[in-house]
């Protein structure tokens, strides 16, 4: 493993998990960096709030029976014309902005996490296969990766989106928007995982334990999953963190551009896009609060990712 080993000194085997975590180098470094602690608390809080949206929100913005057009574009409660029912105001369809943000964050998170998971699965599998098999398979996979790396993720996501839209003519956007967003993110971010995993696989596959596993006749898939994978997965942790931020930005951007989620199932990006239309009439709150939530969350994730990269970098220790 490339993770730093537990701190030196005798470590009685009877230690509880908690005290072992607390004694870990990573934990020590974590509490040494106050900014990272703040970022972790913020991102945890936002994730928890999104998870518990049905209990925290004052209404279900997806339920048409609870939304009234008469409540549209009400400013936040501290401004003239504010309504105590809607603390942060309402959007153009009369949805409570606070509830819509909670539910929207939930949508953004689910898509971001699934997209990253898909990208990691594709990338890790292809990276393992390319590195272990070598030869022509390796060449083909890495060539594809090279070609794709020259295109920005957002462009690939847009293309995937357009192609699916063409293939699914007739059926409404609601039915496939979710899956397509996850697919676009998965297909645009796999390269980094594949390259990293392939690099470590090339080194690990010539070590004795792999030779030993091969000699005792274990099947190749088992060798890849049981022996190789745990030893090359370390660096992926950093990419995962940084990619989550990127994936959420990508989803928001696609929804903002009007090729993501429809206004009936708003993510943060959709809310910002709605708010953008009302910016000129002075309804600043519709774009501000979802935008702020998105910015704070992504910034926190990036801060954690940055810290993790430095903390796991053996050259900086």
């Amino acid at each position: 493993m490339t993770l730093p080993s537990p701190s030196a000194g005798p470590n009685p085997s009877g230690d509880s998990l908690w005290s072992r975590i607390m004694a870990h180098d990573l934990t020590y470094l974590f509490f040494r960096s106050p900014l990272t602690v703040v970022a972790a608390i913020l991102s945890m809080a936002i994730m928890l709030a999104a998870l518990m949206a049905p209990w925290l929100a004052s209404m279900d913005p997806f339920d048409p029976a609870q939304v009234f057009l008469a409540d549209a574009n009400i400013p936040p409660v501290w401004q003239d014309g504010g309504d105590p029912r809607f603390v942060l105001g309402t959007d153009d369809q009369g949805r409570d902005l606070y509830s819509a943000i909670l539910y929207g964050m939930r949508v953004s998170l689910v898509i971001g996490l699934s997209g990253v998971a898909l990208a990691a699965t594709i990338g890790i599998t292809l990276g393992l296969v390319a590195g272990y098999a070598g030869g022509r398979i390796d060449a083909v996979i890495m060539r594809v990766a090279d070609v794709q790396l020259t295109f920005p993720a957002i462009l690939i996501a847009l293309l995937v989106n357009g192609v699916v839209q063409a293939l699914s003519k007739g059926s409404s956007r609601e039915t496939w928007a979710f899956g397509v967003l996850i697919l676009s993110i998965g297909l645009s971010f796999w390269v980094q995982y594949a390259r990293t995993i392939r690099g470590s696989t090339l080194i690990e596959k010539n070590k004795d334990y792999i030779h030993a596993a091969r000699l005792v006749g274990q099947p190749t898939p088992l060798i890849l999953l049981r022996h190789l994978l745990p030893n090359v997965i370390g660096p992926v942790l950093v990419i995962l963190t940084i990619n989550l931020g990127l994936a959420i930005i990508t989803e928001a951007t696609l929804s903002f551009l009007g090729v993501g989620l429809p206004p009936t199932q708003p993510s943060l990006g959709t809310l910002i896009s709605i708010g953008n239309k009302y910016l000129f009439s002075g309804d600043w709150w519709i774009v501000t609060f979802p935008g702020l939530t998105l910015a704070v969350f992504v910034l926190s994730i990036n801060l954690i990712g940055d810290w993790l990269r430095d903390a796991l970098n053996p050259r900086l220790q």
Partner: protein
Amino acid sequence: MLAFIIRRILQSCMVLLTVALLAFTMFRFVGDPVAQIVSLDTPAEEVRKVRESLGLDDPVVVQMGRYLYKAVQLDFGISYQFRQPVIELLAERAPATLELALISSFLSLAIGIPMGVYTALRRDSLFARVFQSISLVGVSLPTFLIGILLIYLFAVTLGWLPSFGRGQVVTVSGRWTTGLLTASGLKALILPSITLGLYQMTLIMRLVRAEMLEVLRSDHIKFARARGLTTRAIHFRHALKSTLVPVITIAGLQLGSIIAFAVITETVFQWPGMGALFLKAVQNVDIPIMAAYLMIISALFVTINMVVDLLYAFVDPRLRATIKG
């Protein structure tokens, strides 16, 4: 050396061919070209004629060859939504995008490099920390949010700058329209180019800082110190020079992605460029435009990549040695 150049060019051609194959697949199989031209009550005979005139009954390989042959001559077919040749639509909008992209790259270099040098030389000063924090925010904020923020501040609240369009443009040398020659055109460029360039700027700043810190530790700088040169000469004559080589390379490579990222900026600012056209094509399933844009952008990327690689081979003696060996 010649072998390397030929191999590199062949490699680029292979990549382009792959992309063209992809574009053709999209063009031929994703959208039905006939359905876009005929209406529901067109007689079957008419439909058959259209199919024939488009050559859709020929073997796929022949169609692929024809598509490639036309694409090389910049004939990408006719847009479904505008009923106009795709290449005309793209050519009409290319100046807007290229101008925006070039100004943004220039801005990101002109601001990013000094900021990077400063943060490397005065690592612990207050401004260096401020710049570092700004760069993290710049990386974290999505492009469209930055655009909205700038519009709200400078267009809606202060009313200093326009929030959409290119302003007044003048036509130079036949078809090229430019906004660089009029006051309103220049004013309209400010917000979009900042929006588009901010991400690159933070990237370049971080890169310059990292490279500079690395170079300042190297032997030839130590030697320059030992010779008793002034700090200014060491920093700006020796260190900066070796820092800039990789930075210029990255900036060159980034030019392609700036043009691609223009899709977002052009949408926020209603900038009449190629990116906005592409987005409209994605929304309205206008496959010919999507395929053409894909091919043009990839041709651009591949060319830039190749030129950078070849330049490196010419400049770097170590690389030259490995190519020979």
